[in-house]
């Protein structure tokens, strides 16, 4: 399990990272550049990709995201990422986590399960939600926050 402050193995992108990338947020793009230059190919869980592409409801409405949403920007961002398939084993692990935490956010659960297993840093706009999920199974996940919730 990764703990904030320990060396992490790689990076996992949560929905907020993809949404920020899709509106051209400079902070997430420069983190992405530096991650690639450090030899990493960040991981995107399949459920996160589905959530980020699900439509306007998932998209940020904060002042930081005043730029227009661009599917092309997101597509370019994803070129440097690896997709983590949601197979049966991962799905069952997510279900266990959601059951313990009493929530139903499959995308968030897949981030916590995958990042904990890989000891990844998570780029997210949902620090509090992921922390709650991780704590429900006694885990800690290192995170960097991007666009605020909502």
């Amino acid at each position: 399990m990764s703990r904030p402050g320990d060396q992490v193995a790689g990076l996992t992108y949560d929905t907020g990272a993809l949404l920020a990338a899709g509106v051209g947020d400079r902070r997430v793009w420069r983190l992405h550049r530096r991650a690639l230059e450090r030899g990493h190919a960040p991981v995107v869980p399949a459920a996160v990709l589905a959530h980020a592409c699900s439509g306007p409801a998932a998209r940020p409405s904060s002042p930081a995201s005043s730029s227009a949403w661009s599917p092309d920007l997101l597509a370019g961002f994803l070129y440097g990422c690896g997709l983590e398939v949601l197979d049966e084993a991962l799905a069952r692990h997510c279900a266990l986590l959601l059951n313990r935490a009493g929530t139903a956010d499959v995308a968030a659960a897949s981030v916590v399960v995958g990042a904990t297993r890989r000891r990844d840093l998570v780029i997210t706009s949902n620090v509090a939600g992921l922390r709650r999920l991780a704590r429900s199974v006694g885990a800690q996940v290192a995170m960097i926050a991007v666009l605020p919730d909502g």
Partner: protein
Amino acid sequence: MAVVKRSVSFEAEVWSELTAAAGGGAFSPLVNEAVAFYLRRRRGLAAVAAYEAEHGAFTRAELESADRGLDQVGVPDLTSAQPTRVARSRARTRPR
């Protein structure tokens, strides 16, 4: 998925490390995974360059800020990992 068979050459020391890393398993998946990873990073960096061409190049301050963020949570620089014996040998013999 379609596959192609090609003959490739390796430096002897690289091949030796590869066989040790494979631990008796198949080489093709290992090499395929390594090449796919390399290409993914290459495509990613090309996309970042396209982003910067359209939205403006990152300033030194922006990149230093990103580095600080990654350093604070311990994201390693895998490209500066200890070089293989081959790379060390090359570094010693590289003409100035």
